[in-house]
């Protein structure tokens, strides 16, 4: 599936949902808990987190991968490590701005 800014994806192992904030440079495989993530409106066959792919995504956090330049935002928390082409995504840490509104 083509990943564009705004594409919403969900996990096949947990409640995890993400939205693509920055699309990857080329075609990549985005996985959660070791299994491919699918479009938000699809109904994947659910399975458990695959061994060696344990982890969790936290609501509101952003996850990035250097080589592909992808950035996703977690819109629903859940179990399973997020990865791109087998590389675990890293939590992007940024000091939150004070609320101006």
């Amino acid at each position, binding site marked *: 599936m083509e990943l564009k800014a705004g594409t919403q994806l969900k996990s096949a192992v947990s409640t995890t949902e993400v939205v693509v*904030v920055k699309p990857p440079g080329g075609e990549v495989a985005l996985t959660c808990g070791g299994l491919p993530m699918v479009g938000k409106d699809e109904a994947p066959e659910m399975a458990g987190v695959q061994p060696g792919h344990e982890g969790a995504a936290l*609501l509101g956090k952003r996850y990035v991968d250097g080589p592909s330049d992808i950035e996703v935002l977690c*819109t629903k928390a859940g179990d399973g490590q997020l990865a791109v082409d087998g590389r675990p995504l890293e939590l992007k840490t940024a000091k939150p701005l004070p609320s*101006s*509104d």
Partner: protein
Amino acid sequence: MHLGLVLDMAASGFGDRTAVTVGGDSVTYAGLAERSWAASAQIGDRAVSSVVYLGTNHLAYPVALFGAAGAGVPFVPLNYRLGADQLAAQLEAHPGALVVHEGEPPAGADGDRFVGRQEFYDSLAVTGAAEPEAQDPDATCLLLYTSGTTSAPKAAVLRHRHLVSYLFGTCEFGAAGHDEAALVAVPPYHIAGVANLLSNLYAGRRIVYLDRFDPEGWLRTVREERVTQAMVIPTMLARIVEHLGEETDAGTPSLASLSYGGSRMAPAVLLRALELFGSTGFVNAYGLTETSSTIALLGPDDHRDALSSADPAVRARLGSVGRLLPGIELEVRDEAGRVLPPGEPGLLFLRGDQVSGEYTGTSLLDDDGWFCTRDRGHLDAEGYLFVEGRADDTIIRGGENIAPAEIEDVLLDHEGVVDAVVVGLPDDEWGQRLVGVVVPAEGGHPDPEELRRLVRARLRSSKTPEHIEFWDELPRTDTGKLLRRTVIARLAEAQGTAAPA
């Protein structure tokens, strides 16, 4: 990206949380999404070309906004306080609109395109409305009429990608704690009202709307609803401070953050507010309608550092709008277009994904994407931005460019002055001469000569008003912007001279 995505994300991430409270009524994030998508379907079926919202803040406001977004038509919140003629002209500019209104329909309403806001809201209590199809991020999301303090009102165009860039670039999704609540008292037709709604929804914070502002009601609502964040315009804060009188504490322990912006804050009001709200973090936000609201902010730490510093350059930052948000570029340019170094004042140019710089029919962005704000200002050595006011307000006296803000700040420093404006009137000898208008503090009447001496001592004689008048109040828009043209016209009329073109 499209704004519909934001509501989808919020409904899926924290659908059970309360999104908006008005009076005694509330709606959850999931409920807001359901009603909004039901509205989108209704709007699509009726083939309306835009959705106009005419009234104060209400549960119907976010539903109308997201309903329009989901249907791919512009949302147009209008100033319900406008006179009948002006309002009729603005409604005429949106002939195919669905008009959601408060109270009686406006004069000349032709029936089926007009719907009362409660009726509109209640009619959408259906479940299972499908999420709208993905929409074009380049579509027009919002048409906002600027206040038109220097010219006739015109509609700024904000596209989905501008507003979503603002949210994704500056706010943290779902970051609000369960007990957080934001009190919103700015009107729905102002960019701050829209930005408040969107960024609080994005953060997952409960929004509490105050229908009409008065200082007592504002303070009571903060206490009763345990409000944690609030945004005010400077005139509101001035009234709150005045209302608290001799109190030593505002008595609002839940209030963690108070942001202000929209026009310049009198330094004395800010200092007094910092005393009264001692445990609250202050945020000064600067932005324009054309930039999807905030582009620079002075945060709580900046306020504290400036207050406690002995260094005049750091202390002066209390009067700045802080530093630029990530993703925003700024250039200070002179009239010939040369980029100026820090410390030198000039015109402010902005660039970034949230900057639209567009009005219906015209884009003001140059070939490289820069937007000229028509505001003047300068940066200090550490990147703090000081805004000196509109370029169009600059007074030229004997060839010298004078920013009235600098003189007004000195006048406002006098304890007998609660509001002040300085304008230029036509003068045969100097081109323009400076005249000050001052609103005295209750019961006081400062000596005009003393005020002039104060300005001369702090600035210089060429910046000293020749004459100072005393008025009961200054003309301002609903959102606190000073109407300088009205001041000039009144002064000119009183002196029997024609107002300058």
